[in-house]
């Protein structure tokens, strides 16, 4: 995004704002312009490039991070608006060299191909588990719909998330109507 290069009107000084964040357990202090998104701060100022800029419009979910344990699109919020908050990115999910159970499950279930959406998928899945609203495989599918995977790894992603959540495996159900147009996963 070239937006950082936007020149201020002549004579106007570009003000910066102090932003204190706790990122993956570590306190950080930044001085940023008001228009810097949380995603750009993480990637370009904090050096945490795990969160991806896919669409930059909140449509793909690749930028998903956790703020206070809740999943959000970091491309759709300004860093100054998050001052004082506790941020978790994909870099903060593992415990040292021990992978987060979701990360391990993603590997075991072949839940990615190119991997570009994976950081967002992982943070989104952690947020999903924190919310506690998904009780079935179908609800996992619906409540992961804010994360797009162009490789089409959805079956593996759903399998990984549901396994870690301890949800019963989906079984064929003759009572359940098949809905034309849906993609089996």
């Amino acid at each position, binding site marked *: *995004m070239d*937006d950082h290069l*936007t020149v*201020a*009107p002549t004579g*106007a000084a*570009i*003000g910066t*704002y102090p932003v204190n964040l706790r990122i993956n357990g570590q306190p950080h202090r930044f001085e940023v*312009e*008001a*228009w810097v*998104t949380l995603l750009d701060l993480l990637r370009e100022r904090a050096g945490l490039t795990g969160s991806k800029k896919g669409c*930059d*419009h*909140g449509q793909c*979910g690749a930028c*998903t991070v956790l703020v206070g344990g*809740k*999943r*959000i*699109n970091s491309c*759709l*919020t*300004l860093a*100054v*608006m998050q001052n004082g908050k506790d941020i978790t990115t994909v870099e903060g999910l593992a415990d040292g060299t021990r992978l987060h159970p979701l990360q391990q499950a993603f590997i075991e279930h072949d839940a990615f191909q190119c991997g570009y959406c994976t950081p967002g998928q992982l943070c*989104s899945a952690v*947020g*999903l588990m924190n*919310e506690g*609203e998904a009780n*079935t*495989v*179908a*609800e996992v*599918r*619906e*409540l992961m*719909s*804010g*994360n797009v995977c162009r490789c089409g790894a959805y079956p593996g992603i759903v399998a990984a998330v549901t396994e870690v959540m301890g949800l019963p495996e*989906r079984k*064929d*159900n*003759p009572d*359940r*109507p*098949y*809905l034309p*147009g*849906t*993609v*089996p*996963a």
Partner: protein
Amino acid sequence: MNPITYVEAADVAGALGHQHISGRAFIAGGTNLIDLMKEQVMRPSTLVDINGLRLDTIEPSASGGLLLGATARNADTACHPLVRDGYPLLTAAILAGASPQIRNMASNGGNLLQRTRCHYFYDLATACNKRDPGSGCAAIGGLTRQHAILGASAHCIATHPSDMCVALAALEAVVHVRSGEGARQIAFADFHRLPEDHPERDTTLAPGELITHIELPPAAQFAAHSAYLKFRDRASYAFALVSVAAMLDVGDDGVVRDARLALGGVAHKPWRAPLAEAALIGRRAGPETFAHAAELLLSGARGQGDNDFKITMARRAVIRALEQALEGTHDNSHEFAGKEPL
């Protein structure tokens, strides 16, 4: 994004105090405003952050309804026990919109104020009376799959994108606003407007006015019979082609005592028609009554070409939503179940 100044307001008076600044915009969730700023469709000079105003509560109102804070998040609103139990239609509508991430960020006040997703509104290279008054409307005669079939004008055929607002229209919510001049309340039907010859005005909110709360009147009579039915191009995370909020109060004799119907995705505002609801009341609930109400609700509908199908789709959706409401409280779990293949 253009250079902007950022101010955090500590209270309502502080937020309203910045209204003399030209190009001032309030920001709460920012999910729509920041996107539009990136596209240069909206170019505020100063953002006044209203998240510190303590308007994020959901609590019973004095009149026995519910008061939703303007900065309460859509997700927190949808999942609040008082909303889930008393207003299942609102929960269903909110959960049918956007994604979990966006619902975690988006505020209730902001949901009301979100702009149309008309492609031409977003595309600076095309004419749009909503973005640039007087420039024309490139949507008319263009790609119109998402556009209005009701209440459009020769200047704008955009639709309001919200799901939440369709439920709020059916619930006859009241929008509480504050300005330097004091407080006032706006009936939901009067909050959004039709484009007419001023499509740049989405709402009847005056410059400088701030939404503080959205009040839900008591709706216990409808709590057992409601449905939010949404048709879209994807199974999830897409704007409505057509959506229906339906609420029924049905007696033991099967006669409709009261009814509410609102359509989404078809007009510049959630669409209601008093005649359609009147045609349900006092009649026996059933296919013929529902079909008649659907005819009346779609009365005057006109397609733009690509979206002609919406007229038939909306008519059928109204009938199906009323059938679902008659059965009971239709929430999104049915949608989830339907989506799971064999």
